[in-house]
């Protein structure tokens, strides 16, 4: 149990924790950027999950097998970057339209 470096359940638990905190942040942050931060947390938690499984199950030694988990997490990072750009562009547009990014005030989808 104290062998944390190769303790998959620990890594998983940590990623679940991060994920939960990400949910909280995404659902209850008042600012749009706060929501975005929650999303980032969730993404990272998932990515960490992948890497943990890859390393502690399949190993990182290249012996004719691929590092699928690592690749996946790499793509997650890339896509997070793209998504950040788009998201912040949207936030900018919202800010331009209404001079505020308060999530509680964005209720055009109501009904």
């Amino acid at each position: 149990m104290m062998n944390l470096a190769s303790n998959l359940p620990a890594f998983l638990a940590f990623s679940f924790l991060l994920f939960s905190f990400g949910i909280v942040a995404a659902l209850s942050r008042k600012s749009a950027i706060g929501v975005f931060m929650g999303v980032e947390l969730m993404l990272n938690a998932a990515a960490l999950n992948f890497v943990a499984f890859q390393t502690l199950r399949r190993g990182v030694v290249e012996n004719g097998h691929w590092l699928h988990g690592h690749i996946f997490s790499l793509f997650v990072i890339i896509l997070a970057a793209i998504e950040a750009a788009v998201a912040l562009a949207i936030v900018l547009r919202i800010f331009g339209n209404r001079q505020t990014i308060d999530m509680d005030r964005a209720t055009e989808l109501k009904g």
Partner: protein
Amino acid sequence: MTIADIFVGACFILGAFGAFFTAFHPNILYAAISLILSLLSVAGLYGALGADFLAAAQLIIYIGGILIVILFAVMMSEDIYKKRFFEGAKKYIWPTIFSGIVFVTLTRVMMQVDWSNGSTPDFEPTSRAMGWALVGPYAVTFQYVAIILLFGLIGAVIIARPAIKMKQRAAEIAVEDNTEEKDA
């Protein structure tokens, strides 16, 4: 208890704290900084898991790129100085409960699995493997992602452009044309 364990434990603690503050701190700037801390610890964990390339990528792209942009956005927004933007606690009740349930359920599911055949793996540098993977099995994915990157950037630019009324734009163009004709 090896160094790796202590390191991993420290990363866990830091990451947890960071995530906590990201979610719960009233001041959004503090939240952003905490996110940086959290993602830094994730990068550390990547390293502890032998994903050296990924740790570097995380540090460079995520923290050095994305989070800086977020930080800019936070600072440019009115959040940090307008008092009313400090979070209200009432909004947190239900999401906390639900995410608590999610966390507990996930953990319990995890607990039921037999993780017994775990062992400390051998490490070696992963960059070559990553590179081969990118042009190997994941070549097409790589191209997809590139295109998505392109689209995303173009889209972001378009979305972020200020809106110009058509008539106003037409008037501007007319003025420019007149000016050009006069010049010519």
